[in-house]
């Protein structure tokens, strides 16, 4: 599955925790980096984390596979056999996102206009893989066309606009009201900090901040993307009437042992946020000022209070972790191609420098934006004023702002 590229392995990355210190950042090269831990781990915690890492990386297998009780129960319909297949050593999914069959880490969720999931004969996710002898639920194809525009100074820009025709569905038509919700696998570092953020309401995980806890998000991943049950999700994501799925042999009740579930949580909580790549001092200060003056920091906030981590009062995720309506351009669409109002979590900008080093960049909830500039130009709705302020800047100022964002 995913392989770390040839990155320098920086050892002895010590977490920097001090009162009101900025977000602890270490030279995180990937989940396999043995020394990278957000918070110090004692021997027992280290063992749990290491087991979690192995579980995260391991391809799960069909129920009953000999000698594989800890990792059996995959499917029978699923999207990928391991967390790492989508979550790329803890980093955001690996590209490219181009015309053709939707790649495995781009998950097609199925919803309804009112926002409820599970309204389809395929459950919450269109599972694109299946065990031998079981029908795949369906697959999506990516088709891009272009949106062209100009900045007020005349400089042209171009965006790639995706559509998601569903190639085939196995047993039944999708109901007319179905909303197609494409979602690319986000990074899973800094999870302990997102858990600790003090927010007005519990939802914080996922591209829509709809999920309140890391445990819940992990249980959803096992059930929806891998077809594996856990203590929080005793059922996999079978569609209604999918007898083959509902009656399939199980790999234990639940399929993930509680201790292993805890290990996968421990691994995710241990992953630190990759280091920034700051610009030269003057440019760094000017870029940050532009980011604030342009109104970006209204949502991509500079500081967020956290609770429960000794010595840490605030983090800089460059996100309020709240959801906002960015307009019909980004909104999910129903089968008749009508945009449905959709709220997305302000995407944390931490880790962008590391993501850029692993180019191609896949930004926004479906990976459509291949650059920071494209991501900004997709902002509408509640972010219209900030987007307009960005467009009105001089080409030099825009370039500086983009470079500064690329360095987070």
């Amino acid at each position: 599955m995913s392989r770390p590229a040839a990155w320098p392995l920086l050892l002895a990355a010590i977490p920097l925790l001090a009162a009101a210190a900025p977000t602890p950042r270490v030279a995180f090269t990937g989940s396999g980096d043995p020394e990278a831990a957000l918070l110090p781990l004692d021997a027992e915690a280290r063992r749990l984390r290491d087991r979690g890492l192995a579980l995260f990386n391991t391809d799960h297998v069909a129920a009953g596979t000999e000698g594989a009780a800890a990792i059996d129960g995959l499917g029978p319909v699923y999207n990928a056999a391991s967390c790492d297949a989508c979550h790329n050593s803890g980093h955001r999914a690996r590209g490219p996102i181009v015309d053709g069959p939707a790649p495995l880490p781009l998950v097609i969720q199925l919803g309804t206009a009112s926002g409820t999931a599970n309204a389809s004969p395929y459950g919450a996710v269109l599972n694109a893989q299946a065990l031998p002898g079981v029908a795949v639920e369906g697959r999506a194809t990516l088709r891009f066309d272009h949106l062209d525009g100009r900045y007020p100074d005349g400089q042209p820009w171009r965006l790639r606009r995706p559509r998601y025709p569903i190639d085939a569905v196995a047993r039944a038509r999708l109901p007319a009201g179905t909303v197609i919700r494409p979602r690319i696998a986000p990074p899973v570092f800094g999870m302990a900090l997102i858990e600790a953020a003090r927010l007005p309401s519990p939802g914080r995980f996922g591209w829509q901040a709809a999920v309140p806890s890391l445990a819940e998000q992990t249980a959803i991943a096992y059930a929806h993307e891998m077809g594996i049950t856990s203590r929080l999700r005793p059922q996999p994501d079978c569609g209604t009437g999918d007898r083959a799925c509902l009656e399939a042999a199980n790999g234990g009740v639940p399929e993930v042992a509680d201790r292993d579930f805890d290990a996968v949580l421990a691994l995710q909580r241990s992953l630190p946020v990759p280091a920034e790549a700051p610009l030269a001092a003057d440019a760094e200060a000017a870029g940050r000022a532009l980011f604030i003056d342009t109104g970006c920091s209204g949502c991509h906030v500079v500081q967020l209070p956290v609770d429960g981590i000794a010595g840490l009062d605030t983090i800089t995720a460059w996100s309020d972790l709240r959801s906002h309506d960015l307009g019909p351009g980004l909104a999910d669409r129903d089968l008749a191609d009508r945009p449905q109002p959709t709220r997305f979590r302000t995407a944390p900008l931490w880790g962008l420098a590391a993501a850029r080093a692993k180019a191609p960049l896949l930004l926004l909830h479906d990976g459509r934006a291949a650059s920071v500039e494209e991501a900004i130009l997709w902002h509408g709705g509640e972010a219209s004023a900030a987007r307009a302020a960005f467009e009105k800047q001089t080409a030099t100022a825009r370039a500086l702002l983009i470079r500064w964002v690329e360095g987070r």
Partner: protein
Amino acid sequence: MMPLLARLGLSLLALAMGSPASAQEPAGDGCQAFRWNVSAERALFAGAGKALDAGRDAASAAPLLPAQLAVVRLPAQDTVNYARPPAKPRLADGAHGGLLRFTVPSDGEYRVALSSAHWIDVVDGATLLPSLDFHGASGCAAPRKLVRYRLPGGRPLLLQFSGAVDSTVRVTVTPEP
């Protein structure tokens, strides 16, 4: 605000409705999904391969010839002593693994292609060689994944398999086209 362009006919969702039988394989042949040029590998994987038994350690690693398909039997992973720990730790539960040795004629970029989802490492002396890139098609086994390396020519290297349950794997080493 994002300007919204007129919708193109292209963008309508096409729901291909086959009979349940024809819908078994909605996306067609999984081996068509590669974005790399895999014609050399596809041709080798279509032929008969040379049977090999993977070694349980560096000393017993079986010889693999470049540009030839090998069909490799793997022992249970918990009986294998790797020359270096695999770069991606996975559980050994139910897994099969093992080692082969091979030599490429000259320095350059090569691909290892395999039929399974095993994690592979190439070991040069005491060092794990970093991979340059990888690619795969989960719906295909001929091959299923390819990993690209820059390899030193003229000296023996080890190829380590770990972390998947399959007890046989078909494998080739070919120059990057």
